[in-house]
């Protein structure tokens, strides 16, 4: 199949061989599980259980609320010890509401929803509802509720389901292992998703550094003419949704649009497997494969981990630390987030836990920019990191916004390539945060202004009506207060409030 070039990109040290030949191992149930109510993009789920409740595996313990949200399920049978504030797996380490389960060791399944007998004859809505009910989110790392994305077929005309098996982040091998060990489940899940989306074609994109996965998936897909497995070049960030679409179809997703506007929906391979489990067995998403790796991990492994397992338990299962890690990262080394501590749970979007040594991170003090232009050459988004950073350093965020800082998806290529070790992505994340805040401020004040104006009009109208009524009742109504004064004061008060 003809492929198309993508702009820029880098070739970091992949170090996937630390775990790529390690078969997925299941981890014993830890002493306690911590299920945060928000493990996804969107609104947190609503708690359905209380302290002391007994739950069984797969039982819904928190329900999705709002248009974009995902439910949470008990990863095993046991007792709810509390619903408390626990540190979230986020760099801030801020606490969030979390359901704590003490497993009873029986791992008993709850009464699960019936399997959908013939999903290809089922209405797309049935599948969509089942996926929503099963709490499935995008397992590539972004954790966007999958049901919402599966519903795109209802709004847009779709042609292709693109299954993302690129796994372009260094170290991570969880998708590689899932494709190699469960190819039929992934393919079945993909076919079900394609049916739900109404797409005729399925393309599975896998980076060329996973030859076994490519071979196994090609063989598994051979029976289905609508499925094509494509080997894409090893070029970070190939796994970025928009870039993968461009590499495979040659089409560039316009800014502020979705790939779905081009008729292509992208899902992760592990998500497809989760859909297979939900549809064929009624099983919700209660565990995932996590790559535990990095130079400071004694036994790097791919671990089938119950959602809610503390990172410290997972690290201990992998033999603990063999050296002092310089930092522990949630996700891949390029786009992953630093963990504030090991006392945070594994969530649905946790693709990797990396304990990295200083040598692997290769950090150095920042020196002066020598304008070498490497960041401009490699930026996969066609931005000019050197210029944006210069403006952000002077807090000139408006110009940075004009130069497109909001188009940056923080892939980290510029920081990686910079010979002066300038933390470019750090600058851009800062700018994006402030600009987003300013934008929401602006929206808020605009809304207040509109409300105030509406109120003024309303009060004026009321005063007008009153005056008219008074005038009708008695002609000498000259001593009525001037109507303008009061309304004006109210408006100002409202705006200042």
């Amino acid at each position, binding site marked *: 199949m003809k492929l198309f070039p993508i*702009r820029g990109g*880098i070739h*970091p*040290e992949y170090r996937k061989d630390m775990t790529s030949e390690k078969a997925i191992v299941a981890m014993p149930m830890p002493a306690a599980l911590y299920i945060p109510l928000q493990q996804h993009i969107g609104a947190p789920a609503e708690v359905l259980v209380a302290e002391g409740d007994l739950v069984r595996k797969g039982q819904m313990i928190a329900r999705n609320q709002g248009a974009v949200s995902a439910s949470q399920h008990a990863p095993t049978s046991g007792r709810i010890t509390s619903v408390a504030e626990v540190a979230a797996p986020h760099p801030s380490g801020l606490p969030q509401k979390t359901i704590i389960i003490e497993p009873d060791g029986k791992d008993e399944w709850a009464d699960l929803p019936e399997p959908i007998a013939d999903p290809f004859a089922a209405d797309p809505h049935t599948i969509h509802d089942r996926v929503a009910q099963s709490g499935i989110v995008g397992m590539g790392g972004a954790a966007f509720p999958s049901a919402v994305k599966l519903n795109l077929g209802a709004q847009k005309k779709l*042609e292709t389901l693109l299954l993302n098996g690129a796994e372009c982040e*260094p170290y991570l091998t969880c998708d590689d292992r899932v494709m190699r060990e469960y190819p039929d489940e992934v393919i079945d899940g993909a076919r079900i998703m394609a049916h739900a989306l109404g797409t005729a074609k399925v393309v599975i994109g896998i980076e060329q550094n996973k030859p076994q996965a490519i071979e196994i998936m090609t063989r598994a897909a051979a029976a289905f003419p609508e499925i094509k497995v494509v080997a894409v070049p090893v070029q970070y960030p190939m796994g970025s949704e*928009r870039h993968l679409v461009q590499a495979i179809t040659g*089409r*560039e997703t*316009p*800014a502020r*649009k979705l790939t779905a*506007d*081009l008729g292509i929906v992208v899902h992760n391979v592990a998500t497809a497997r989760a859909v297979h489990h939900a549809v064929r067995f009624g099983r919700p998403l209660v565990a995932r494969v996590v790559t535990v790796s990095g130079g400071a991990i004694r036994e790097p492994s791919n671990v089938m981990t119950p959602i809610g397992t503390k990172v410290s338990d997972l690290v201990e299962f992998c033999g603990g630390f063999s050296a*002092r*890690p310089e*930092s522990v*990262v949630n996700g891949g*080394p*390029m*786009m*992953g*987030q*630093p*963990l504030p*501590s*090991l006392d945070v749970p594994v969530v649905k979007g946790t693709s990797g836990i*990396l*304990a*990295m040594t200083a040598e*692997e*991170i*290769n*950090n*150095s003090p920042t*020196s*002066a*920019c*020598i*304008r*070498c*232009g*490497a960041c*401009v*050459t490699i930026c*996969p*988004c*066609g931005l*000019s990191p050197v*210029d944006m950073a210069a403006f952000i350093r002077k807090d000139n965020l408006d110009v940075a916004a004009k130069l*497109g800082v909001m*188009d940056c998806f*923080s892939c*980290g290529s510029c*920081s990686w390539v*910079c*010979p*002066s070790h300038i*933390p470019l*992505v750090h600058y851009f994340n800062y700018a994006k945060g402030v600009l987003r805040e300013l934008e929401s401020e602006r929206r808020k004040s605009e809304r207040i202004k509109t409300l105030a104006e509406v109120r003024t009009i309303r009060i004026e109208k009321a005063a007008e009506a009153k005056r008219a009524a008074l005038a009708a009742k008695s002609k000498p109504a000259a001593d009525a207060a001037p109507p303008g004064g009061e309304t004006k004061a109210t408006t100002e008060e409202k705006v200042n409030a």
Partner: protein
Amino acid sequence: MSIAIMKKSGPFAHGFNTVQKTMFTVLLALMPATLFNLYLFGWPAILLFTITVGACVAVEAACLLLAGKPVVATLADCSAILTGWLLAMSLPPWAPWWIGVLAAIFAIALTKHAFGGLGQNVFNPAMVGRTVMLISFPVAMTVWVAPHPLFSAGAPGLTEAFAITFGGNMPDTVSAASALGYIKTELSRGIPVAQSMAQVPDLMDMTLGYRAGSMGETSAILILAGGLFLMAKRIISWHIPVSMMGSLFLIAALFHAIDPARFTSGTFHLMSGATFLGAFFIATDYVTSPVSKTGQLIFGIGVGLLTWSIRNFAGYPEGMAFAVLLMNSLTPIIDQYTRPRAFGRTRKGEPLPLEEKP
């Protein structure tokens, strides 16, 4: 076990390139041409080279000290050495010591540190150093000598070299004109190019470097080798060298075809003066050239055309340095207008229209 809390976001991986490595690679690329030229021009050249590089490092250290910046750590980036090195290669090899020192002060103190140090300067420091010297001391800066290889008969020994560099005792008989200078002088006397060309060293000698000129002007072949090494190491890309030499060659060849009596050939322009040094080592300076590839092409073409114009129509026989400095001043504007097109957007920054499937 406790873990260190990272204060910044990712990535948690980094390439192995550093500023120091980059500068060091450039120095390595300059090494063959430098060694050959030091051999060719003997002890006086070695003395001037040492003084110029030493002065640049000393001035850099003084400026860092004054600015309260870390001295040793910053000196380790090798940028001052590189500036001094390129500066020394652009001076007449037998020039007196104070030329090297003054040029170093202009290059490092006024061109680099007055603007904020490494990465902040608008103009190429080495070229400012050379140009200021050329304008201020035109006589000392245009005394070229024919090659006097080390240990050959007639080559100055160490003692004589000290007299030349520190005493200003330039032997009367050794001066020679550079090819570009000779052609220009003859042309001003009304002697056509075709006739004066017969007197300049043949192309082969020019390529190998056996001719009068500054160290960087001779031995095009070794400079070219260094430049290709830099390309292979991906320190520089082809854009500036190719566009610069290409435009210089094309315009020279065009005018030579129109009026061979007045204009020298494209090949002559490529092989003479500091064309190769300029194309691979001067115009490609990161700090003072555009960051985008399109910008670099425009920059290179500008340098090529200006070099040719200055060589032919201005008062100086060689225009490389002036051309680079003029284009340096345009770099910020070129950068502003040659930013790459952002993903999913038009050149103007609007979102791409949703086209139908091609």
